[in-house]
């Protein structure tokens, strides 16, 4: 099977606190996954689960403590930044933070064209920029000479995507691309990713906390919790029939836009977050409704149930369970 990007046992440890009382937080703990060509892969979880740290390591903003990232069969550190960023481009959460408010947006486009030597003259550059803007539903005329403040959030996020497309990347890393965009415009961004995948074969690493849009666009999904991938597989299987207790909790906590389906029952929240990082054994054990003795002592192994990876003791050989249990 062809793999566009492979992340292999990626670990990042941050140290917190003073010299005397030092806490080591494992932000990502042996995270492994891969992305196929022309695939939207979602990395979902709550804040502090390590999804952004993973993205930052892939993009080279953060040095992994251990583990490797392989892009097109080569380690990302091997061939230099230009080679890597030509194939992998990023879109960030806050479109207004992406661009300097005092510069016109088109300057970023010309700069990118220049840096990657994508055109021989200005006319060719404009042609290329116009072509990419058309792909996101904008045009050069309505964009030239404008400042970021003259666009709406949704438009600017599309501009940001068009800029990322200039180098003809095979992979886009989108870190919470819709969380700052209005609900009415969110779908236009998400639909854009779908279109890029279908028409241009671009893969997207879609990092989000919004499981509903993740379900809508992505092919496969990984659910992260406190630095671990707890469940990973095809999106229908993971989100419609979640197996890991944490995925179930997450899935049930999403307010559905249907007044018939209101929440019942109370939810248990963690009081102090960093305790969960430092926990021995399974990090969800403190809140898990199905907690067993072994969960508190031993880190659960990765078990495959059908096509889905589940990191839970419930699914190991010693504890055979049907998937019919409920929370």
């Amino acid at each position: 099977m062809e793999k566009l990007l492979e992340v292999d046992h990626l670990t990042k440890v941050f140290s917190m606190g003073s010299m005397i009382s030092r806490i080591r937080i494992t932000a990502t703990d042996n995270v492994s996954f891969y992305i196929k060509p022309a695939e939207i892969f979602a990395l979902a979880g709550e804040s502090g689960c390590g999804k952004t740290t993973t993205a930052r390591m892939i993009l080279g903003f953060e040095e992994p403590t251990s583990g490797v990232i392989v892009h097109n069969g080569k380690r990302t550190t091997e061939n230099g930044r230009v080679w890597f960023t030509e194939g992998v481009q990023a879109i960030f959460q806050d479109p207004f933070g992406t661009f300097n408010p005092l510069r016109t947006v088109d300057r970023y486009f010309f700069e990118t064209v220049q840096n990657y030597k994508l055109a021989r003259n200005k006319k060719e550059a404009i042609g290329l920029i116009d072509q990419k803007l058309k792909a996101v539903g904008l045009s050069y005329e309505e964009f030239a000479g404008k400042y970021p403040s003259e666009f709406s959030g949704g438009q600017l996020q599309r501009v940001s995507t068009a800029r990322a497309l200039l180098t003809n990347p095979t992979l886009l890393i989108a870190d919470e691309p819709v969380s700052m965009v209005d609900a009415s415009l969110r779908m236009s961004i998400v639909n854009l990713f779908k279109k890029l995948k279908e028409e241009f074969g671009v893969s997207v690493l879609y990092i989000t906390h919004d499981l509903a849009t993740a379900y809508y666009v992505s092919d496969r999904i990984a659910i992260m919790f406190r630095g671990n991938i707890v469940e990973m597989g095809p999106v229908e299987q993971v989100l419609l029939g979640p197996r890991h207790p944490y995925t179930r909790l997450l899935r049930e906590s999403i307010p559905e836009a249907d007044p018939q389906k209101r929440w019942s029952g109370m939810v248990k929240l963690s009081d102090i977050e960093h305790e969960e990082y430092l926990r021995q054994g399974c990090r969800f054990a403190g809140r898990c409704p199905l907690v067993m003795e072994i969960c508190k002592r031993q880190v659960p192994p990765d078990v495959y149930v059908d096509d889905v990876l589940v990191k839970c003791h419930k699914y190991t050989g010693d504890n055979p369970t049907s998937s019919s249990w409920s929370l």
Partner: protein
Amino acid sequence: MNQTILRTEQLKAFYVLDIHGTQKVVKAVNEIDLDIYENEVYGIAGESGCGKTTLLKALVGAIEPPLRLIGGRVLYQMSGEEIDVASLDEEEKRQLRWEYVSYVPQGSMSVLNPVIKLKETYRDFVESHAGRNTREQAFQMAKEHIAELGLPLKILDAYPHQLSGGMRQRVTIALAALLKPRIIVADEPTTALDVVVQRGVVQLLKEIQRKLENTIVLVTHDMGVQANVADRIGIMYAGKMVEEAPTGRIFGEPLHPYTQYLINSLPRFGDKATREGVPGSPPSLLNLPSGCPFHPRCPHALDICTEQMPGHSNVERNHRVACWLAGE
């Protein structure tokens, strides 16, 4: 049976800005009529910049320049009388706050004083409103209140920074409910929180409402949260209330084209069919289109829509909509 507790009449609140000698008027709340009942959760939804927060500020009487009350009235129902908020002086307003109406502003997890413990914050609250209480009584009251709402007691001995964002948000909401106000006005209380924590906050709001049998006015753009808590929902667009109906009808039979887009664009589990966002961009409140502000984005726009703002037509009891296509 539906006793009105809070009412507005043609409420108009604009931001009047003076930029280099030219006056700019931001029409954030424009001719809004509301009737909010006792013992209900009234949801207000709409995208950012549609005037939701400004409407709340007007409701609690927190109008400060550059925001100005241009016209209309906000009326509270208090012991059989209607009181116009604008007629109250600062001291009278201060007394009403927290005892009659509580306001939980946006980003309220950052409102707690960072250098004092939470029990001191609670004491401040109790003392400023019920001065006769001693320190112990205040502390006792805080403890009972916290326990009743299912929050851990140890938070009273904590400083705000020691708590997570979700816990701070819940503490602030609990604080707003401490003096048993008749109305709690909450602005985006679940935004910027994780889904599981968000559920905890919503749970707390529901719990408070059930216990106090009071009114909660909940502003959030998240239609999922609205579906989960609100009894009635008002949809705002560009400073106007464009549709208002019981929650079931807003989701089941939305009539305004904007509401329809808003509901239909929500992704649902188990359904991967393509969903479209609203075309175009939200209008600027500085420079509103003529007639109905939604007409440049509306697929059904008629000639009259570009000329005249439609009035509200009551399609059914409790369901009103401001659209030329409806009610004929």
